[in-house]
């Protein structure tokens, strides 16, 4: 049996209970007010070849006036 990478696996969702969610609490991730959208946001950046990932993140923090930012690792290997 061929081993599938996570991006090719199809998973079904199994229901255990019936429940509703209160529309007045929290947000649909695609309907967050813009400041929350940024606060819980990620970007797939086309990193310029020169600077290090660390420098790029520092620039982004400054540009977007963020308190925190981090990158998803470069080459772990």
């Amino acid at each position: 049996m061929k081993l599938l990478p996570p991006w090719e696996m199809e998973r079904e969702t199994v229901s255990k209970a019936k429940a509703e969610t209160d529309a007045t609490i929290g947000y649909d991730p695609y309907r967050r007010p813009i400041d929350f959208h940024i606060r819980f946001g990620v970007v797939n950046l086309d990193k310029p070849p020169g600077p290090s990932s660390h420098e790029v993140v520092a620039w982004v923090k400054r540009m977007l006036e963020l308190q925190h930012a981090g990158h998803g690792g470069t080459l772990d290997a």
Partner: protein
Amino acid sequence: MLPVAFEDATKAIQAFLLSGKTYVCVVQLHDDVAEQTIRDTFAEFSGEIFQRPPLRASVKRIVRRRTIYALEILEIEGRSVLFRADCQAGTYMRKICSDIGEAIGRGAHMSELRRTRAGPFDEDRNLCSMYDLLEAYDDWKSGRDEEGLRKIVRPVEEAFKFIPKIYIRDSAVDAICHGADLAIPGVVKLDEGIMNKTPLVLMSLKGEAVALAKALMPTEQIVEQNHGIAAKTVRVIMPEGTYPRLWKEAHDRRDAMSSV
């Protein structure tokens, strides 16, 4: 291709360490080798392999099993072999290259490496340039338009696209935000194929990421049982108080009732 997370989304970066990766790599063989030998050896490296992390790794250096989902030779030119590898998180391509060299018997080393995918983030998906980002931010700040930012900046939930999920009821959310483990009564629906120790994301019914967790039971057991702890909370993402403290009220009500 560099995924960058903002503010609270930085808590999700751990998930990148769990995501499968795709690398494009060049291995330099230390001698001339027949093409068929190269192809045959590569075929041996698909599937499950064993690796010990190198000296420089930040993980425990025990031999561990890793899965190579796919290994495809793209081009062979003399002693250089260009190939693509889809592999489980924490697979060391440098070691794969030197092991291929050992398997062939003539030695080899990795000469080039590029990561082209980390979980849901890949090179083909309209990468955002620094300029695009600055422009979109500027459009918003000068009061004109937030649409550019909304398109370029993705909700952190997209980073979890390929991680198995358990959806929890509203009354369970804040407890998890306070670090509580997930008790079975809080589960509404869940993905198939979850096993003990599977890394998970706990989601609200609106699709918001609540916390990263680790399964303590497989899907079937969570569905069947009515009590017990389904998952251990590892990293909370949603701030406390986003959802009301319904768990404490229910607890107080129960205490008040029992003292009657």
